[in-house]
């Protein structure tokens, strides 16, 4: 879909970030820019800097405050972009504590790495995407951590055809996101850092403290890539994975930790679930709006299960995102099976698959909740959910 702009540098690099490169080249080829924009509109989920391009442009135009070196926006403008500013027509994009956003931005401005920790589904990745888009104008320099992540996916690798024919040179070098972020002075996102092997994590050490990457294969000044102003790292880590405890303390020291929490109050979360699931349902061709009372049951149940202590707490993630997907499933069932909004029976049927996944313990916890807690609640919808409890599969 996307013709290579630089055929000689095209590789099969797994994190080759063609999309990122395309942005860079857009300025060089204005003719193609129009074409790629149309293509982007058809994307399932364009990156933040594309989705909110107008807001970013407006903020940049109005920005009167000092910008940290290498930043696209001042701290205040970046904060307004993320937290929202109703008066200026900037939508609120991250529902959470504004102080957290402030700490995160200041951390990045002080040249320490930022590590966002939290339960899955607490919008850590969204936050890191928004911050990168606000600070560097691009959120596409991303390393996706995983068990198979290697150092050359972080720093650089080679186009082996060129390497063999011409020897090591900047032409045959394929920079990975970290190297590009350093060379261009941009924020690099490192998703799920704790899922990487420890030795791969530790390859960030020198990069974060010395702010330089050595490329021993290249001679002369090209053998050292120094980080430009504006380079920094936002990592995210999941408390359900191996967790941050296993990170080396040397690496921990180079990051400031920010824990992202689930949305603290019911009304905000309910509104978010209602809006997001409504959006998803419309995209799925469902015209019936979700039943608000039923959504309230769903969100309340998720919050109670999430807040449970010790062994009562499901191992599955009872996140807002998960609630949205249950609400979506409920709406789909109701609409396509009967042509009406989803009801309590749909909710119970959807819970097993989406919320309990394949864990029999979670299913038991859910069943116990339906049996013992739900009947204590007042209201027709709670009663209906209780009556439908036998539909919980498994």
């Amino acid at each position, binding site marked *: 879909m996307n013709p290579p702009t630089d055929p000689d540098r095209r590789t099969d690099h797994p994190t080759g970030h063609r999309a990122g490169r395309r942005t860079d080249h857009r300025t060089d080829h204005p003719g193609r820019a129009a074409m790629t924009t149309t293509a982007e509109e058809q994307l399932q989920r364009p990156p933040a800097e594309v989705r909110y391009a107008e807001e970013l442009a407006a903020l940049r135009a109005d920005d009167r405050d000092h910008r940290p070196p290498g930043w696209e926006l001042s701290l205040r403008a970046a*904060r307004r972009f993320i937290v929202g500013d109703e008066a200026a027509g900037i939508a609120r994009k991250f529902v959470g*504590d504004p*102080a957290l956003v402030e*700490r995160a931005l200041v951390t990045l401005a002080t040249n320490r790495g930022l590590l966002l920790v939290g339960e899955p589904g607490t919008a850590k990745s969204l936050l890191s995407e928004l911050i990168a888009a606000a600070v560097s104008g691009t959120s596409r320099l991303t390393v996706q951590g995983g068990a198979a992540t290697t150092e050359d996916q972080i720093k650089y690798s080679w186009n082996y055809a060129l390497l063999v024919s011409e020897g090591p040179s900047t032409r045959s070098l394929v920079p990975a996101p970290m190297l590009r972020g350093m060379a261009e002075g941009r924020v690099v996102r490192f998703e799920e850092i704790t899922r990487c092997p420890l030795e791969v994590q530790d390859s960030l050490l020198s990069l974060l403290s010395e702010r330089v990457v050595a490329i021993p294969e290249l001679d002369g000044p090209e053998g050292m890539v120094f980080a430009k102003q504006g380079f920094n790292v936002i990592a995210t880590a999941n408390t359900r994975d191996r967790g941050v405890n296993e990170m080396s303390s040397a690496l*921990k020291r180079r990051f*400031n930790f920010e824990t992202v929490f689930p949305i603290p109050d019911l009304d905000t979360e309910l509104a978010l679930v209602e809006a997001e699931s409504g959006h998803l349902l419309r995209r799925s061709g469902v015209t019936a709006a979700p039943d608000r009372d039923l959504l309230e049951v769903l969100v309340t149940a998720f919050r109670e299960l999430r807040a449970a202590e010790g062994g009562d707490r499901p191992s599955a993630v009872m996140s807002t995102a998960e609630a949205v997907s249950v609400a979506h499933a409920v709406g789909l069932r109701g609409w396509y099976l009967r042509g009406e909004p989803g009801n309590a029976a749909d909710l119970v049927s959807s819970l097993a698959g989406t919320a309990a996944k394949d864990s029999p313990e979670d299913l038991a916890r859910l069943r116990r909740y339906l*049996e013992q807690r739900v009947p204590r609640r007042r209201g027709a919808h709670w009663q209906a959910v209780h009556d439908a409890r036998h539909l919980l599969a498994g």
Partner: protein
Amino acid sequence: MPAVFLGVRHHSPACARLVADTVRRLRPAYVLVEGPADLNGRLDELALGHDLPIAVFSHYRDAERTATTWAPLCDYSPEWVALREGRAVGAEVLFVDLPSWHPAFELRANRYADAEARYAEATARLCERFGTGSVDALWDGLFEVAPADGLAERLDAYFDLVRGDAEADEGDRAREAYMADWVRAVLAEAGTATVLVVTGGFHTPALRTLAGRPAEVPGRPALPAPPPGAVSGSYLVPYSFRQLDAFAGYQSGMPSPAYYQRLWEGGPEAAADRLRRSVVARLRRRRHPVSTADLVAAAALTGGLAALRGHAVPSRTDVLDGLAGALVKDDLTQPLPWSERAPLAPGSHPVVVEMVAAASGGRTGRLHPDTPAPPLVHDAGARLAAIGATGTRPLTCDLTIADGLAASRTLHRLRVLGVPGRHRTAGPAHGADPVTGERWEAESESGRDAALIEAGAYGATLDEAAATVLAERARTTGSADAGLADLLFDTVLCGATALTDRLLTTLTATVARHPDPGALGAVLATALGLWRHDRVYGTARSPLLAAVLDGAVSRILWLVEGAHGRSGADPARLTALAAVRDALRHAPEQLTATRADTAALALRIARDPYAPADLRGAAHGLHLTLDVAALDAAALDVAALDAAGNLDSLGDWLAGLFALAREEVTADSGDGSLLAVLDAVLADLTDAEFLIALPALRQAFAWFPPRERERIARRLIERRGLRGSGRGLLRTTADPLHLAAARALEENVTALLDRHGLRSAR
């Protein structure tokens, strides 16, 4: 001349400074302060020269309700400064608010809580307008660390925004009307002299409007009198920063008193610096590494945050946020407590705990020696004299007679209040202890008065103060096993008859989140016993125990359905289920859980392959005893055989069954009865299998007293059509070692005969 209205936030150093400046500048003839008007005759007591913080403690009791309210005062309270400075310039200082017993203060423990916190939409509006997460952070930025010029105007604008068009609730309306009456009356008296009115800023806009209206009744407003038969009073008690910081939710005022004390004394830079130092000192004392690099990072973060938030000088949250960002190297389990008005939750990160403690401080106030002692001191003295516990003579109390019980209660109340003087050397140790006498020895009485004055903050009478302390203990009792049962028994011993709602709700809340079914079972059994039979302490059918019964039953049922995995038989949780069965039998009308619900739940557990064997057995037994619809024999067979198929769990399963349904198991021995099924299962075991199952089987049968074991033996003999005594089957006359040796010899001989083919075919 119109009155000068000064709207303040309680416990705000910036407002306190503004009050001091205003009083010195205007030299008013009258200073009207938001404070209980019933104290107006006793303002000299406040000026005695106490070490702050202190509090005006007010109590009230009538037939329907009891209430206790504190009005804490510290060096930087605007009300305190108004009182002090007003008297210094020779003004008449008057408290103009309703007395604390007034229903307007119902459910309010802190008179000087922030009014706006009760109006959530006002708070939300403010935060949204300024884009901050909490009002406290917003307030600090706008007022505490901002330059002082234009403070009064900014305060007016702020409180106009807070009040907005919010309709005050009934209590606030009554208070505003009363305060406006005072303002009008004093204005009429003052003529051309200046009148300064210092009240919470939330009330100022309303007071301005109300005070402009003509007075309905001329003269100073009368002090409302409490209804006939009610007991009420106000007095001074020493207070502490810890207590000041402990109000939660909408009761809270400004947090972190030590920080604001420092801010009051030395300004925001000094306060920020001191806070940082004190956090680092505390952490290093606890051997938590704090490197210089961390401190540089924290300082950089704090500076950056202050700049981003538009603070000329770092505020409290800037410093705390900076330190947290640089020092916390783990994921947190709770949001940072200063980002929302939440008390520190158990399991908070140690760095966060130290930070909160450093900001909160440990200062405690002391009253001037001439301060009239709080009524608790007199009450305690009178009660001790009444029971004759004044000398060094040991005291014995017979709990079965009214006087002895009253004496015991007095002494126990003093004990839970931590007042020295007497300690108990003999008496009942728990609710089911059949001891009805107590002995109390005298010990050193030094520190008793100090302890009583301190405890005076909890209530006006021993009874009330003990109930308050017990409620506080209930709140802090976490998962400590013994804590809950002890607490319940202490409540009974103290005869907390003037049961405060607070004690009731905290105790039930503690029960509702207790993690251990065994401990809950102990509490439930004790509570049930007392609720049914207690004549000694007079707690039979008491609502407190009923609430505990219901809470414990629900919680145990919740916990047992959630227990999964393999483990040996746990007698504690089996006893807990037995206690549930008893509660369902003897106090069903007190429980939310019905027999039918519980039976259905028992069936679910009994059939749950993931439930531990002992619980499955117990659930089986519970279902049998509830007798809703008898399990059919086939279902029973399946369950028993299923358990038997797994030799490790057979004994555990039986232990559970026997713990709950002894009577049902031994009742019947016909074909298809439980006993018959078990007999068949056991008879089918090979010797090796039997040996594996034996220890758990022994444990299971230990639930039967000897007499019932004999009955089982008799039934088994009958079943096989044999004759003999059941007792004989249970006892051996020979030494078990001999029997084992004989058995081994016999096996050897059989094996030898088999080897040589000498044994006849069987």
